[in-house]
């Protein structure tokens, strides 16, 4: 076991991969936690697809550089976010339907342009990333995004908690409630871009959502949720990277997300707020079981 670790550590690309995913975990974990709490889990997935045409157009016109990725992705992400808000506010569609319509168009545009341009980069690395080939610029991108994210969260955390827990109340508390919403969406796009290079568009959201949903089964406080989410994310990365080192033909993105999925299933079965909670706490408990919440929500 120890031999394996020293051998793995002796390769520069593995060291980079471990450092990059550790920093990435610290950055995406809080974003994922609030995606889940704000009921935007699926919106996160949709947004990951929505930024594809921006990345592709940036790549086709300016090559596979971090700057083209960042600029193209930001324009596409922010554009889709604004259009979604516009459609939801001015037309009959709700925001989920608006976002779904837009991300399907965006994904199709992205893949169409990529194929039409006869790209040298295979589709597979767009979808699943290429964590084993991270260069210095990508490391800088991950580090930069992590810094921006963590500093933003230090300032945004309280308003974000209040606006997530009780949006109606939050609206009465500030003149610019949309600032928090849009700021959070911007952080989401930035983190998707940081994760894109390493995990690909299909897997990027996996490292956000799965550790957060797994943590949700154990934590009853925000602090616990954030901390556990990070622990699950970083563990998924380390175990996933080791797995993909042991089985050289497996891409690292799916390996990492698969481990995160393992944490999720384990938590759903054994976590106190999952199935396990109801099995171990029979009706003598004074606590309201999850089943009662379901019933009351149905009644409303």
């Amino acid at each position, binding site marked *: 076991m120890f031999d394996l670790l020293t051998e793995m550590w002796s390769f520069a690309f593995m060291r980079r991969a471990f450092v990059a995913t550790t920093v990435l975990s610290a950055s995406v974990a809080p974003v994922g936690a609030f995606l889940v709490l704000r009921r935007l889990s699926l919106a996160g997935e949709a947004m990951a697809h929505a930024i594809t045409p921006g990345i592709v157009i940036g790549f086709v016109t300016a090559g596979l550089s971090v700057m083209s990725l960042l600029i193209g992705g930001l324009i596409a992400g922010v554009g889709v976010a604004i259009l979604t808000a516009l459609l939801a506010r001015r037309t009959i569609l709700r925001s989920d339907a608006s976002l779904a319509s837009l991300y399907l168009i965006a994904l199709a545009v992205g893949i169409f342009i990529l194929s039409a341009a006869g790209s040298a980069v295979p589709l597979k690395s767009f979808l699943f990333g290429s964590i084993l080939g991270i260069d210095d610029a990508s490391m800088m991108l991950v580090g930069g995004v992590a810094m921006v994210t963590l500093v933003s969260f*230090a300032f945004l955390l*309280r308003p974000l908690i209040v606006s*997530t827990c009780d949006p109606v109340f939050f609206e009465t508390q500030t003149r610019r409630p949309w600032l928090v919403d849009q700021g959070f969406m911007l952080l989401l796009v930035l983190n998707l871009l940081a994760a894109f290079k390493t995990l690909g568009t299909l897997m990027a959201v996996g490292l956000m959502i799965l550790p957060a949903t797994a943590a949700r089964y154990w934590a*009853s406080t925000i602090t616990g949720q954030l901390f556990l989410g990070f622990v699950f994310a970083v563990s998924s990365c380390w175990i996933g990277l080791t797995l993909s080192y042991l089985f050289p033909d497996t891409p690292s993105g799916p390996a990492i997300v698969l481990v995160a999925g393992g944490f999720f299933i384990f938590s759903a079965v054994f976590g106190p707020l999952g199935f396990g909670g109801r099995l171990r706490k029979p009706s003598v408990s004074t606590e*309201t079981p*999850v089943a009662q919440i379901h019933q009351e929500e149905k009644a409303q």
Partner: protein
Amino acid sequence: MSAVLELRDLTLGYRDLTLFRRLSMDIEAGSTLAVLGANGSGKSTFVKMLLGLMDPLGGQLNWPSGRPGEIGYLAQMTEFDRRFPIRVRDLAAMGAWRGFGFRGGLDRAARDRMTAALDEAGVLDIADRPLHQLSGGQLQRALFARVIMQDAPLILLDEPFAAVDQSTEAHLLSIIRRWRDEGRAVVLVVHDLSSVLDHCSHALLLGGQEATHGSVSDVLTPDRLVAQGYLSESQAAWMFRGVPTASEPAHV
């Protein structure tokens, strides 16, 4: 008594629907105003307008001593997500979150104030429980603790008793009485004619594109309630049986 808020010639509604026209009234310090009306008559819209979340179609809101930095607000409980991972204590603290700044803990005075608020709302013993473990009544008490923490001169409560039992209702009414005695103005959206009205000094009846304001006994007459679509004639006759009305004097 001094007015916290003066409404002048207020017209409220949406682009294609006017809820009422040219309402002028004062919301006074130390008063409790009950807002009644049929579904869709604009009770919640009225509250949202007072909060500044919505502009009236016409008229003015004047704040004689300035718009307070904090307006106490309790939305209808159905709008609340009970699965959010937060403890009762933190929910109450939310009432004063702007005062705590972006980070840092609560100082001694804030902690004392919070303990008092949790105690008065009757949730001190469950202060460390997460929200998903609370009953509907306990959650409403926790939300009242948050309103207490807001410490506002004007307090707006949207159907606070819709989903709570009688003993919780009585407990929460005692808190409302204290607010009134302290000279705060309380606006209370109520969904039915009940003993809650005994605790209100004024009433505002919405419906039929009209708004009637006055003392509870002046506004909530059978004729008015029928005219503004709140009760049918037979409902009014049953509810007010034995009560003399203007059209039919009681036999002595």
